[in-house]
């Protein structure tokens, strides 16, 4: 059952008492009842720029909630607790995300927050959580700058970008003869920017020459100038990061302006089905990295014991669409929470935080072990490629479904 709460009574009263301000508003705040459910707060971008991503989160949240409650709930300190995920739409608006985090904690009295989609919005929500000593689980923030603020209440299931990029550089060096020059081009926004920086650093560390390394600001409509510069630099590998709409355009303009690089990597591009749909044949050959792919096979704790179990459930819930890493990571985060609650044995924020910090388990999503800064330390993240308009896994070898195909004339 979906549980998208609409705080009607409070707000209607607010309207009725516009002139006397907030007096009556406060009367609506009920006193805390003795708690017999685990409450999880989730500000989601259900409208606005990140709506598509927000809806993905909502989908797996609902799946998990149903799955756990059908099994009778979670056993905490010898008692079975049903779970309730309380979701609000923050409209892809930073200040709203903060406001909602505060409302979830103070009015809905949630025990844990699930961070919203964007890295920036994750920071805002986690900051509120930290004030109230409520743990925040982030399933779609991978930039280390989000975790570098010494917030002991923030945990993330994605592993640091650097883990990804170093593996990518190694893989390409092994599989592409004569790889020497790389061009890096990224959107000036938290996640793409840190991926671009990490890739440039990893490439240099790996002995590659970075021949182009630039960012484009939010609001860029066209990439011809940058791509002409990239063409002139004659790279063997073009690495671009940004939102799907940017990457579709960049891929197209790379082709239009005659880029000859044998490898084009786009992050997160191919990890989303919209990318391949938007580009058609042009998507073929584009490589990417992702934190999770449904062809991995892990066994572990929680609502879904195996990747297969999650995948099957997901297909049923989504009407046949494949899950991407957002789905995997967010479901994985809830599975970790499930485990941590059992170990914490209480609903106290501090106890849950400690249990999360001590986590060292394997889930359907993969191994999870939060490091010093709260980020998952997993390695061996999948490298994928679009072949024949479908996603193939190239790495790690244990789950590879295809060999790297080079883009060449």
């Amino acid at each position, binding site marked *: 059952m979906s549980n998208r709460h609409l705080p009607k009574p409070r707000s209607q009263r607010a309207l009725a008492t516009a002139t006397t301000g907030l007096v009556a508003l406060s009367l609506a705040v009920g006193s805390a009842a003795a708690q017999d459910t685990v409450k999880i707060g989730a500000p989601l971008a259900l409208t606005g720029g990140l709506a598509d991503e927000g809806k993905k989160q909502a989908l797996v949240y609902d799946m998990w909630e149903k799955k756990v409650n059908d099994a009778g709930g979670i056993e905490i300190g010898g008692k079975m607790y049903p779970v309730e995920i309380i979701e609000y739409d923050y409209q892809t608006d930073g200040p709203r995300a903060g406001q909602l985090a505060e409302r979830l904690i103070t009015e809905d009295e949630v025990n844990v927050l699930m961070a919203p989609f964007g890295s920036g919005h994750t920071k805002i929500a986690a900051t509120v959580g930290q004030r109230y000593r409520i743990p925040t689980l982030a399933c779609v923030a991978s930039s280390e700058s989000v975790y570098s603020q010494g917030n002991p209440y923030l945990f993330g299931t994605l592993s640091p970008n650097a883990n990804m990029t170093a593996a990518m550089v190694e893989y390409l060096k092994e599989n592409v003869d004569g790889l020497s020059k790389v061009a890096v081009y990224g959107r000036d926004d938290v996640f793409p920017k840190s991926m671009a920086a990490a890739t440039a650093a990893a490439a240099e560390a790996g002995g590659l020459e970075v021949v182009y390394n630039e960012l484009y600001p939010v609001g860029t*409509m066209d990439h*011809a100038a940058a791509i002409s510069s990239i063409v002139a630099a004659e790279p063997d590998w073009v690495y671009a990061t940004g939102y799907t709409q940017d990457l579709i355009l960049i891929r197209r303009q790379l082709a239009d302006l005659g880029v000859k690089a044998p490898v084009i990597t786009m992050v997160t591009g191919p990890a989303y089905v919209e990318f391949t749909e938007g580009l058609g044949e042009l998507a073929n050959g584009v490589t990417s990295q992702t934190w999770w792919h449904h062809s991995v096979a892990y066994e572990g704790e929680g609502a879904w014991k195996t990747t297969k179990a999650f995948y099957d459930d997901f297909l049923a819930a989504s009407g046949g669409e494949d899950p991407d890493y957002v789905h995997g990571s967010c479901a994985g985060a809830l599975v970790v929470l499930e485990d941590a609650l059992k170990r914490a044995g209480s609903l106290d924020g501090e106890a849950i935080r400690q249990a999360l910090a001590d986590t060292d388990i394997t889930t359907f999503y993969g191994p999870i072990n939060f490091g010093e800064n709260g980020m998952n330390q997993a390695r061996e993240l999948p490298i994928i490629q679009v072949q024949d308009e479908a996603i193939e896994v190239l790495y790690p070898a244990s789950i590879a479904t295809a060999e790297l195909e080079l883009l060449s004339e």
Partner: protein
Amino acid sequence: MDFAQILANGVVLGALYACLAVGFSLVWGVLNVINMLHGSFIILGGYLTYFAWQMFGIHPLIMLPIVAAFLFVVGYALQAIFINKVVTAPVLVTLTLTFGLDMILYNLMTVYFSATPRQVTLGLGSIQLFGVYLPVVRLLGMALALLLTGLLYVTLRGSRIGRAIVAVRMDRSAAALMGIRVNRIYAITFGIGALMAGAAGALFAMVFPITTNLSGVFLGKAFVVCVIGGLGSVPGALVGGLALGIIESFSGVLLGPQHALTVGFLVMLLLLIVRPTGLVGVKGYE
């Protein structure tokens, strides 16, 4: 870096900018209204073109006149019903009103079309001329943009309605005395502005991924193009569009893409202060 390639990039992009801005410029020049809806009109045109292509396989070039006609009706109606009531009010009022209307249109589009980027993929590739790459879709877009802009110019110059629009633009009260029904001309002008936006949207669906999030970007470009080129005149939009395309192209290569947008806006601010009539503008609007 190849100078010819940078220039070609700028000119092709500039023609698209001109097409994007010309309707906005016309409305501003004739009605003295800053139409905040313009960006969303373009997006609407783009979406309609995309869905016609995706669902019924209708070619964007066939959709273009249909979308343009549809948006003319939308624009005409919005002007006749809403904007006309405050058309003589200060800019704060008209701007805020069109912003409010834009919020409604934007919301409708996000609900019915979602924020997923959509693009018509024709896969035409590019041609190479003296070592300069020219994407065919963009060349087509540029040709159409110039054609549309030219058509508008000819219409304004040659037709009865066009002459009436120009008369209203020059002197509203004199035009009224001459028996021109000013309100009708306003609605037609606003309709033509929307029509040009719709046509630009149909073009853009072939060139750019269309998403509602881009409406603000398109609107911003229209501002800059109008101020650089000069208001209310078709040649102004053309010059402004080409100038912006070339400025962005060169600054993107020389200063890096991070600063290309900033340079465009700075040129605009500078021109606002030094020469508010724009590069080819005429005096007369405040």
